[in-house]
Structures are given as structure tokens and as C-alpha cells.
């Protein structure tokens, strides 16, 4: 589609591609760091996953995961990496709002805002 103003679709696709790649690399690096610490600490213990218990509250909420990760607790660091991973597509959608606005494509700004609202609702509701 030809755009009289703003960024071309191709340029937007390039930025989105790089954004996604950076998010995945960062998330994987944090998960790997946490994973090494985790195995070093709990490597000798017996894993228990046959019965579902659910995670403790400090590994469920966004703010508590940050607290755990900052103090370099292995499980908290892994959760932070997973949170970064979940945030990557959300950041992609948020960027798309700006990109469509730059193109003055208000129909797609609205469509993208609906998707963003659903994602924010999912991450914020507990």
C-alpha cells in the first residue's frame, strides 16, 4: 500500500522484526542466567511435578517477581525472563499503535488499541 506520509510498511516490518528478536534474546539470556543459578542451587534435590500445587505468590505477581529477581534468586530471575518474553509481543503491539498513527491510519490505530487493551487486561488482572 502506498503511503503519502509517514513510515512505509516495509520500514515498520523491519523495526518490528528487530524488536521481536531483541526481546527474545534478552528474555533467553535472563532465563539462562537464572537457570544456571537454579541448577547450581537445587541440582541435587528431587523434582516434584506429578502433583499440581501452583506457584507461591512471590512467583506470580509482576512486582514480587521483580523483587525476587533483583535479589538474584534463581527462580525469580527465571520468572523475570519469562515475563520479558510475555512482554515482547505486547511491546510489538504497542509499537504498532505508534506506527499506524505515524501513517495516519486511524482505522488500524483503533484495531491495534483493542488488541493492546486485551493484552494489558490479561497481564494486569490477577
Amino acid at each position: 500500500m502506498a503511503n503519502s506520509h509517514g513510515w512505509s510498511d516495509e520500514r515498520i516490518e523491519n523495526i518490528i522484526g528487530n524488536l521481536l528478536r531483541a526481546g527474545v534474546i534478552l528474555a533467553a539470556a535472563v532465563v539462562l542466567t537464572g537457570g544456571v543459578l537454579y541448577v547450581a542451587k537445587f541440582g541435587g534435590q528431587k523434582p516434584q511435578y506429578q502433583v499440581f500445587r501452583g506457584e507461591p505468590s512471590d512467583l506470580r505477581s509482576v512486582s514480587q517477581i521483580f523483587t525476587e529477581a533483583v535479589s538474584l534468586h534463581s527462580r525469580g530471575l527465571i520468572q523475570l525472563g519469562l515475563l520479558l518474553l510475555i512482554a515482547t509481543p505486547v511491546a510489538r503491539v504497542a509499537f504498532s499503535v505508534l506506527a499506524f498513527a505515524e501513517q495516519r491510519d486511524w482505522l488500524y490505530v483503533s484495531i491495534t488499541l483493542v488488541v493492546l487493551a486485551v493484552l494489558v487486561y490479561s497481564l494486569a488482572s490477577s
Partner: protein
Amino acid sequence: MSGTLEFTLLIAGGSFLAGLLGALTGLGGGVIIVPLLTLIFHVDIRYAIGASLVSVIATSSGAAAAYLKEGYSNIRVGMFLEIATTIGALGGAYLATRIPTAAIAIIFGLVLLYSAWASVKTEPDLTATEAGPFARLLRLGGHYPTPEGMRAYHVQGVPAGFGLMYVAGVLSGLLGIGSGAIKVLAMDRAMRIPFKVSTTTSNFMIGVTAAASAGIYLHRGYLDPGIAMPVMLGVLAGALLGARILPGAKVRTLRLIFGAAISAVAIEMIFQGIRGKL
């Protein structure tokens, strides 16, 4: 299986194979990782679904970067249909906490059977000769590269495609998979979008769809770091290797063998679900 170290390494290795085969067959890692964790490692299906969901976000986002550069993905089609998949995914994630795990196992087996069949069947490409009314309103058509240069395509069947995408979203949130087979069904069959555009746009949408339910899984305590860590890293590494060797691989034979194997796994999941073992 004795300690956490062995358990972590075994799961990482299994996940690597799942990611590799998922990429080569087009099935995706999610439909392989959940049976692997539940049937072989005896992990509770809720932990398995949570771990699978995050691996799905990783592979989708990692692959999307490459596909976007090739110019196949249609970001407008993807964004519009993500309204349906994300709302569906929220519903699926809520449903997952309310229905018995045995029922989830049975539904998983049925979706697995469909995905295996969809990965081996070949159908003539349907192309729309003109844009449908909704497609025109939403400016959904586009161009894609062919050996003869860029070719324009039209889009039809938007309401049917949107409805199927809602179903794909529910199944993604309920089962922790990308639902790629159903997303491609919606775009390629219902909306008559060229096959390569359908598959790459489907991959592009999978990350956003999975993110919508992953937030709920996190809050409900279904994301266990000890399982999600080796699964995410293993699947991601396997999928990246798979994408690299895919152009030279003989996928047809691989798909047939793997399609048969995955059908057997699907029947086993349904059977275990009926017996109430999962």
C-alpha cells in the same frame, strides 16, 4: 530420574527435539511438548501447558523476525484477526481453570489428530479473484514475493475467518499451543489468502495470542520456573536450528512419519484422559 539437574537436562534435550521437529514439520513445538511432559515425564498437565505456552511465544517471536524480512507476512490481516485470537485466548485460559484436566487431555488429543492430518494433506490453492466487502473496508489485501516478482492478492470470507480465529484463540489458551493449524485453516481456506502468506502471518500472530493467556497462567501459578526454563531454552534452540536446515530438508517423508507418530500420541492422550490419568 534422580535429581533436578538430570531432570532439567532431560527436559531441555526433549524440548530441543520437540522444537526441531515442530519447525521441520510445521506443527510447532507446543503440540509436541505437552504430550512429552505429561506422558513421558509425568508432569501435571497444568505445568506442561504453562511451559509450552511460553515456548510458543519464544519460537513465534524468533521466527517472525526472519519472515517479516522476506515480505510474506501481512501485518494488517494479522492485527485485525488478533482481536479474535486474543479474546479467545482469554476465554480459553479461564476455561482451563474450570474444566477437569482429563477433559483438557481429551480435547488436546483431538486437536493433535487434526493438526497431524492438516500437516500431511495437500489441497489445491484457493485464490480470491476479488475482495469481499469486509476485506475492502479493512484494506486486507496485499502483495507477496513470487519467483516472477511481487504478486497482488485479495481476501474474502472475513466473518468466517474471524470466527475460526476465535476458536484458534480459545484452543491456544486452553491447551498452551500456538493453534497454527487452525489459524492457517482460517486464512488459507476460509479467507483464501495465499498459503505462504497464511503460514507466516499465522506464526506472527501466535506470539500475541499466547501472550494474552500467558499473563493469566502466570497469575494463577501455572508457570513453574523449574519446568518452563529448560522447555523454553530447549524449544527455542531446536526451532532456530530447524528453521536453518528447513530449506534443504526432505520434509514430505518426515511429515508422513511424524504425522503417524503424533497420531499415536494423540490417541494415547485421549485414552489416558478417558481413564482419568492425566
